[in-house]
């Protein structure tokens, strides 16, 4: 199967045919953005110092190091997604304010993000977590660093990436939510499985 590659800037039309469960790759720019950045934007009304309109954010706190002999240039050592659900309470407002198209993270997100993805045409995607060296080697360069006072994990690192992925679509623009659909299956099976286990663990009698 041919690799599906999205390149920033991304339009709503680019995302139209992409469905939950699809695998894509990203070329262009992606900015790390997590807890405090979301809070600053949504709760304190601060403007994001990076324009991510039609672009991508990554829920991640990377390990970076200074490029030898430089004071303000950094290289990516290790970067991987963090739990996206922590940003769920902010994500509707975040997408609305910033116009971001791709939200990359780990695990599923909830109804706020679903609504944002459907209304403003955006995707939530999963980069398989724990694969931070692979992800780092797909970063060509860190082009800028903002809000550095937040420390290494929370700084907004804007990265130029090439075929960054695999990115698995967890929420598409049509309101499909892969994890929520899967959870229905998991929970239905769980009840049957438990009924069976109960029969074998009656150690207190």
């Amino acid at each position, binding site marked *: 199967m041919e690799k599906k590659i999205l390149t920033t800037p991304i339009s709503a039309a680019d995302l139209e045919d992409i469905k939950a*469960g699809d*695998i894509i790759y990203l070329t262009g720019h992606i900015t790390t953005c997590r807890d405090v950045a979301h809070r600053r934007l949504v709760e304190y009304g601060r403007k994001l110092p990076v324009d991510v309109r039609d672009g991508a954010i990554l829920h*991640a*706190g*990377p*390990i970076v*190091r200074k490029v030898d002999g430089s004071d303000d240039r950094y290289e990516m*050592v*290790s*970067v*991987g997604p*963090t*739990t*996206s*659900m922590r940003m769920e309470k902010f994500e509707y407002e975040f997408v609305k304010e910033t116009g971001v198209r791709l939200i990359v993270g*780990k*695990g*599923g997100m909830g109804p706020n993000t679903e609504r944002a993805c459907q209304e403003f045409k955006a995707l939530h995607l*999963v980069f*398989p*977590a*724990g*694969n*931070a*060296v*692979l992800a*780092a*080697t797909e970063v060509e360069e860190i082009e800028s660093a903002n809000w550095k006072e937040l*420390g*290494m*994990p929370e700084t907004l690192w804007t990265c130029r990436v090439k075929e960054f992925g*695999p990115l*698995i679509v*967890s929420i598409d623009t049509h309101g499909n939510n*892969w*994890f929520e659909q*899967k*959870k229905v*299956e*998991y*929970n239905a*099976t*769980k009840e049957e*499985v*438990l009924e*069976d*286990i*109960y029969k*074998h*663990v*009656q*150690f*207190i009698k």
Partner: protein
Amino acid sequence: MEKEKQVQIMTQQIADFVSYMARVLPDDVEAKIKELAADEKNPLAKTIYETMKTNMQLAAELKRPSCQDTGVLQYWVKCGSNYPLIGELEEILREATFKATQEAPLRHNCVETFDEYNTGKNIGTSVPYIMWDIVPGRDDVEIFPYMAGGGCSLPGSGKTLMPGEGYEGVAKFVLDLMTSYGLNACPPLLVGVGVATSIDTAALFSKKALMRPVSSKNPNEKAAYMEQLLEDGINKLHLGPQGMGGDKSVMGVNIENGARHPSVISVAVNVGCWNHRRGHLVFTKDGACQVLSHSGVKF
């Protein structure tokens, strides 16, 4: 002077090992992931296993931490009561953690509570956390370093049940966690379950359970049976890697247990992500070090 030298060497060896552990999986975990990947039929899950494999190769090759979240360091020590450096051990582990943080490098993950600032050193109040067991009469020390990542620490929870809820309640508690918080904790997980009296004892056992090798069994026959029942049961949910669906769900379930008050039965769960960074070292009284978790590492 001799003691000083021994402390210095040991500190560096532990620091070097922690850096190594950040990029190479322990033998048991590597073997289990390989096995799960080989048996997987689901195309999405296969892609994820393929990604994991490439990542581990790159981490070893480029000598970088395989996951950006190198966790908060914890050490379980089983220390002989006659081990000569028993009084120095805590400082050795703190210093080794700091060294590894600079040398690996590890991410700065130690945030002081209430004052809410990152120490930037991975050491702070009770970090690294050390779980002490004193082994009477022995003169060596076993050390299990563990990198407790945020993702796999998040599902951690426990509950004190009434005996009427029984082991059935224990099973339900574990499975409910698997289909909720467990999905975000980077499956296939190693599931550590503690069953004991009050909540603190169950919690401690659940972490110790994660220090046991993946395919090991609880010495109590019934507990081992329950490990198997839970493992098979969770696998039937087909959670797959990253919780996105697949043929199986977990690396394994380890239960550690203690006796209980007749009125309560406590259960706690701690999980290890697929990138389960746990080591096992033994130091003799003279400082000779043996690595039991990772073959091919020698000091």
